[in-house]
């Protein structure tokens, strides 16, 4: 919550009073753990990679040495959040120094939808742009700088449509990402048989404890 507060002139004093709340000056975090024995709940162990982190020796993808002839890829991204891609002229990109190849949606031979759980995540924009930064094309060049500079030469034409930024308005317009899923509480016609099925499994046959549902509520009269 925002409040406009008048503080005493002596704002130093005021700050001092606020000190505990603002700066979190409680005990040191590691002192809050108080346990004698090792490796059990309540005792802290150092992060197994901490030594590597603090010495700069932890290698991230970007730190892996590239072969001398590695190509570098830069992506051309949508500058708008919503619209239709009407023209993608990549001629100047192809001609740019150091560029080896440029690909778009049409160059992908296999699946173009890479949604990991549900479909709906195209690897490149075909026509419909659904978020700012969505990938339009990719450039491979001899250096990263060359690839990034080449990306800037693309000529795009986009029929821009309004972005959907207000969740309430979007709900009213029924702009849902996934089909509506409803959870309801109440009487289920087959409650009795579900419960019977659970109750009949002998505990010894299960690897995990079964949470048995409560007995069915009385059917409405």
């Amino acid at each position: 919550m925002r409040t406009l507060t008048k503080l005493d002139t002596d704002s130093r004093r005021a700050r001092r009073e606020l000190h505990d709340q603002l700066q979190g000056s409680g005990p040191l975090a590691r002192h809050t753990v108080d346990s004698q024995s090792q490796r059990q709940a309540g005792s802290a162990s150092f992060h197994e990679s901490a030594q590597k982190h603090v010495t700069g020796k932890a290698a991230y993808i970007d730190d892996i040495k590239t072969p001398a002839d590695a190509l570098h890829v830069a992506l051309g991204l949508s500058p708008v959040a919503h619209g239709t891609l009407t023209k993608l002229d990549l001629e100047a990109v192809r001609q740019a120094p150091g560029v080896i190849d440029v690909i778009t949606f049409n160059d992908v031979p296999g699946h173009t939808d890479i949604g990991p759980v549900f479909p709906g995540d195209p690897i490149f924009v075909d026509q419909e742009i659904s978020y700012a930064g969505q990938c339009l094309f990719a450039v491979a060049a001899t250096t990263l700088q060359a690839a990034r500079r080449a990306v800037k030469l693309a000529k795009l034409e986009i029929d821009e449509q309004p972005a959907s930024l207000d969740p309430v308005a979007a709900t009213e317009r029924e702009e849902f990402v996934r089909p509506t899923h409803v959870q309801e509480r109440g009487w289920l016609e087959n409650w009795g048989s579900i419960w019977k099925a659970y109750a009949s499994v002998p505990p010894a046959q299960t690897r995990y404890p079964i949470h048995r549902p409560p007995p069915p509520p009385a059917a409405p009269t």
Partner: protein
Amino acid sequence: MATIEFLLNGTPKQCDVPPDTSILTLLRDHLGMTGTKEGCASGDCGACTVAIRNPSDVEACFQSINACITPAHQLNCRHLVTIEGLAQGNQLHPAQQAMVECHGSQCGFCTPGIVMSLFTLHTTQQRCPTPLTPERLEAVLGGNLCRCTGYRPIRDAALSMQSLPWQAPQWFDASLPAVSAPDPERVEENASLFAQPTTQDELTRVRRRYPNARLVAGATDLWLENTQRLVELDQLIDVSRVNELRQIEEATFQEQSGWWIGAGVTYTGNIVNASPIGDTPPVLLALDAWVELANADGSRQIPLSTFFIDYKKTALAADEVISRVFVPKLTDTATLRVWKLSKRREDDISAVLGAFCYHLEAGVMRDVRIAFGGMAATPKRALATEKALEGQPLSKTSFQAAQQALDDEFTPMSDVRGSQLYRQQAARNLLERLYLTLCAPNQEVMLHAYAH
């Protein structure tokens, strides 16, 4: 290509890299030292923090800098310490040890930068121990973002590292033999260049000889043109080592006492980039500062208010540099109040900034000078608003008139930092805040709760 000679973790190095190479690119791409990370490449996150010191200045401490936006050539004759240099064998530096013990890392990507900021703090504390107040820690670590750990373990590391034993390695105070820089006057006009003049005369001559070269001071603005907009910076003239530009001199100018401040410090970059949302220009405008523009023939002085012509357009001619800025001293009775509105307290650029200079004479406003950032294409004096308050008693009516005048004289733009309406309202509110502050001189009106 141009040569850099410097010390890297105590070892002399010589490298030939193009003028627009950053320290980060030099380390990661040319020297294969990948301990220093690239997070944002725009000076925001601190993942690339390294420490730098002038070995010929015995007084100088190590300073943290963002390697991603610092020109590699500014390393000339400097000592660069990176994350790879801290541990001696298996013996971690206290900043490293404390980060391990306090659980200061999770994914670890920000950690090298944080350790380097702590390293500079540690060496400064070794030289002159000063209490580690929360404000001081904020200043030291304010430029380091961590997305996973939370800052408390990191703060704990900062507080506890001083008690760990540490012996400075022998190379710590290593010095560098004098470097002979190539004479920029001999370099061909179109050849790539990183000139580091040491006198103003040399600077203005080099400026005239290379009209297309860009001047660079702290590089925190210029370098983004390279890392973000991918502009090639093939000819650069570094103003940060010019002796005259590093002086501060008390003086009387235009019948006002004040200081001439040499332009080798980074607020000149803040003026010359002419950004409408730079922090110092409105303050300097409210103080009625002047700038001195110099070329190889001489210099001229103009009021700062006439320096800004239009969006990113200034009175600086192609062969000129800013050599000094005159900042008048506030008279005993005058007050300067500056309020900056931004989304974060640390490391953020303002949406609106208001600077108010005035004195109260028997309840009447006198010598009112007001300037705003973020309200026009340039930092700008609010002349009509000033007029509405000048000679007026401290009253609701006079401030309402001033708010009306403010509305009439500014039509701010809408952008990512604030809409036009927000900016108009916020600027009006700053006048309101001034009024409330003046009405209750013993109270400070401030917003002390954050938006959650």
